C-alpha cells in the first residue's frame, strides 16, 4: 500500500500550473453552464439535465453577474483570474442545476465541495467545508427520508433537513459562515451565499415543493417563513450594529435571503410566493452581488462614502425601490403574504422600510466609481431597472 504514495493526483494543481488548470476548469465550467442553460437533454438515452427552468434562468443571471463583475476589474490578470475561477464555480452550479433530485444534488454538492477545498487557502479547513458539507449531508438526508412513506414523521423531517440544507449552503442563520472581508470572495462563504446557493435553492425547492403534501408541506412552509424572518431580523439588526461597511453588506445578503425564504414558504396556488423568491434571488445575483464586488475595493481601501447620483441610485436599487427589480419582487412577496396573513405582510413591509437607510449606506460605500467600474455600475443599474419595469419577462424566462 505504501507504494501508492508516489501516485500523482489527476488534478495536481501545483502552484506553477494552477493558473492553467483553473483556466481548463473554467472552460469546462462554461461548457457545463451553457449545457445547463440550454435545457434538459438526453445522452445515450439518459436524461442529463434537471427540468428546473427558474434555476436555469438564475444560472444565466449568475453568468451575467460574473461577466459584469469581471469587466469592472482593474487589471487584466485580476479579470482573467476572476473569470476562470468564476466559470469553474459556475460549472459546479450548473451541475447542481442539472441534478434532478435532492439525492443527486447532495452527491454533486460533495463533488463541488471537494474541488473547493482542494484549493489551498489560509482559512482553516473546517471553516471552509462545514457549510457546503452540512448542506450536502442535509440535502442527501432529505432525499433519503422522502423515500420512506411508512410514517408521516419522515416527511416532516425530510422537509426540515431540506430547508436546513439550503440554509447551510447559503450560510444563513442558524448556519452562518464566518465572514472576513479581506478574504478573497472566490474562496469565501460569500461566494456560496451569493453565487452558488441561489441557483441551488431554486433548483431544489422548485422541484421538490410540488411533491410535498400534508405535514411535510406544512413543516416546509412554516420553517421557511420562520427561518426567513429570523434572517431578516438578524440582517437588519446586524447591519445596524455593524462596525464596518463590509459587515453591512454581509448582513444585507442575509436580509435579502430572509425575504426569499419567506417567499418560498408562502405556498400558494398562484405561486406568487415562489415567484417573489425567484425575483429576489435574481436581484441578489444580478444586482446585490456585483455591487458588493464593486464596493469591496473601496470598502477595504477605507475610502469615504459618497453621495453621487450613481451611489444614490445604487442605494435605491438595493432597497428595492421602484423602478428596480426589487420592487416587483417585494410587490409579489407582500401580495403573497397578504393572502396568508396580513400581519406577516406588515412585518415584511416594516423590515423592507427599515433596510432602506442601510441600503443608502451600501450605495455610498461604492465611493466614486470611475472608468470600467462606472460602466459596470451603469450596466447593472440599467439591467435592474429594465427587469423592474418588465418583471413579467423575467418571470416568463423562469417558466412562471
Amino acid at each position, binding site marked *: *500500500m*505504501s507504494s*501508492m*504514495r*508516489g*501516485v500523482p*493526483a*489527476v*488534478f*495536481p*494543481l501545483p502552484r506553477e500550473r494552477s493558473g492553467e488548470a483553473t483556466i481548463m476548469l473554467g472552460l469546462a465550467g462554461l461548457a457545463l453552464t451553457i449545457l445547463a442553460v440550454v435545457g434538459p437533454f438526453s445522452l445515450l438515452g*439518459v436524461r442529463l439535465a434537471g427540468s428546473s427552468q427558474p434555476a436555469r434562468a438564475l444560472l444565466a443571471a449568475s453568468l451575467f453577474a460574473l461577466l459584469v463583475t469581471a469587466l469592472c476589474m482593474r487589471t487584466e490578470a485580476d479579470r482573467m483570474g476572476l473569470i476562470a475561477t468564476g466559470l469553474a464555480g459556475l460549472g459546479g452550479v450548473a451541475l447542481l442545476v442539472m441534478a434532478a*433530485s435532492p*439525492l*443527486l444534488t*447532495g*452527491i*454533486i454538492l*460533495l*463533488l463541488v*465541495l*471537494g*474541488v473547493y*477545498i*482542494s484549493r*489551498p487557502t489560509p482559512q*482553516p*479547513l*473546517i*471553516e471552509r*467545508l*462545514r457549510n457546503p*458539507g*452540512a448542506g*450536502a*449531508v442535509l440535502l*442527501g*438526508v432529505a*432525499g*433519503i427520508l422522502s*423515500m*420512506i*412513506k*411508512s*410514517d408521516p414523521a419522515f416527511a416532516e423531517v425530510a422537509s426540515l433537513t431540506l430547508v436546513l440544507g439550503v440554509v447551510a449552503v447559503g450560510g444563513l442563520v442558524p448556519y452562518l459562515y464566518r465572514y472576513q472581508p479581506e478574504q478573497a470572495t472566490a474562496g469565501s462563504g460569500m461566494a456560496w451565499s451569493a453565487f452558488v446557493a441561489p441557483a441551488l435553492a431554486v433548483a431544489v425547492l422548485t422541484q421538490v415543493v410540488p411533491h410535498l403534501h400534508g405535514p411535510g408541506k406544512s413543516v416546509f412552509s412554516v420553517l421557511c417563513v420562520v427561518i426567513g424572518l429570523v434572517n431578516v431580523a438578524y440582517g437588519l439588526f446586524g447591519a445596524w450594529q455593524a462596525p464596518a461597511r463590509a459587515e453591512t453588506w454581509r448582513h444585507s445578503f442575509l436580509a435579502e435571503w430572509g425575504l426569499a425564504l419567506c417567499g418560498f414558504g408562502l405556498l400558494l396556488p398562484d405561486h406568487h410566493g415562489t415567484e417573489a423568491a425567484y425575483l429576489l434571488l435574481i436581484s441578489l445575483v444580478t444586482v446585490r452581488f456585483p455591487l458588493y464586488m464593486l464596493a469591496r475595493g473601496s470598502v477595504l481601501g477605507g475610502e469615504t462614502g459618497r453621495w453621487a447620483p450613481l451611489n444614490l441610485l445604487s442605494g435605491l436599487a438595493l432597497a428595492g425601490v421602484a423602478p428596480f427589480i426589487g420592487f416587483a419582487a417585494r410587490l409579489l412577496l407582500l401580495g403573497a403574504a397578504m393572502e396568508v396573513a396580513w400581519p406577516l405582510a406588515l412585518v415584511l413591509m416594516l423590515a423592507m422600510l427599515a433596510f432602506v437607510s442601510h441600503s443608502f449606506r451600501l450605495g455610498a460605500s461604492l465611493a466614486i466609481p470611475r472608468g470600467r467600474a462606472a460602466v459596470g455600475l451603469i450596466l447593472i443599474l440599467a439591467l435592474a431597472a429594465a427587469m423592474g419595469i418588465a418583471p413579467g419577462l423575467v418571470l416568463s424566462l423562469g417558466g412562471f
Partner: protein
Amino acid sequence: MAALAPAAFAISWLGGAILLLSHARRGVVLGLVLLTAGLALGAHAAGRDQVALALVAGGAVTAALRMRDGLPGWGLLPAGSTPRLVMSLLVLILGLLMGATVKGTTLPVQEALVVVALGAGRLLSAGHRAVALAGAAAVALALASLGGEVTAIAGAAVAAVLGTLPTGGDVEAAA
C-alpha cells in the same frame, strides 16, 4: 437474501465507525472498504446488482487513491476521540431503531443513513483534506446506494473523483 440485510447493516456501520474514529491513511481506507462492502451488500440484498456494482467500483477507486496521502499508519482512536466514539455508538442504536420503524421499502435505507451519519461526522470534523475527502466519498456512496442507476453511477463517479483530488499534504487544525 433477507439474511444478508443485517450483515450489510453491521458491515456498513463498522466501516463508517472505523472511518469516523481514524485520522490516518490505513484506518480511513479500511473504513471506506468496509462501508462500500456493506452498502454493496445491502444493494445486492435489495436485488439492485447494478447499483451494487457501481458502488464497488466507486468505493474501490476512492479507497485505493486515498492510500497515497494523509498521515501514515492506522491512526485509530486518537486523543480526543471520545465524542466520535459516543457518536458512532449512538448512530448504531438509532440505526437499529430505524430498522424497526422503516417499513414499506426494500431499499437499504438503514445502511445508507448510518453511513451518511458517520461519513458526515468524519467530513465535518476533519483536520486534514484527505480525511475530509474520504468522509465526502463515504456520504456520496451512501446516497448513491438509494438512487436509480444514474444516481448510483454519478455517486460512484463522484466518490472516485474525490479520491483523485489533491490534498496538498498539509494537516490543518480542526476547529
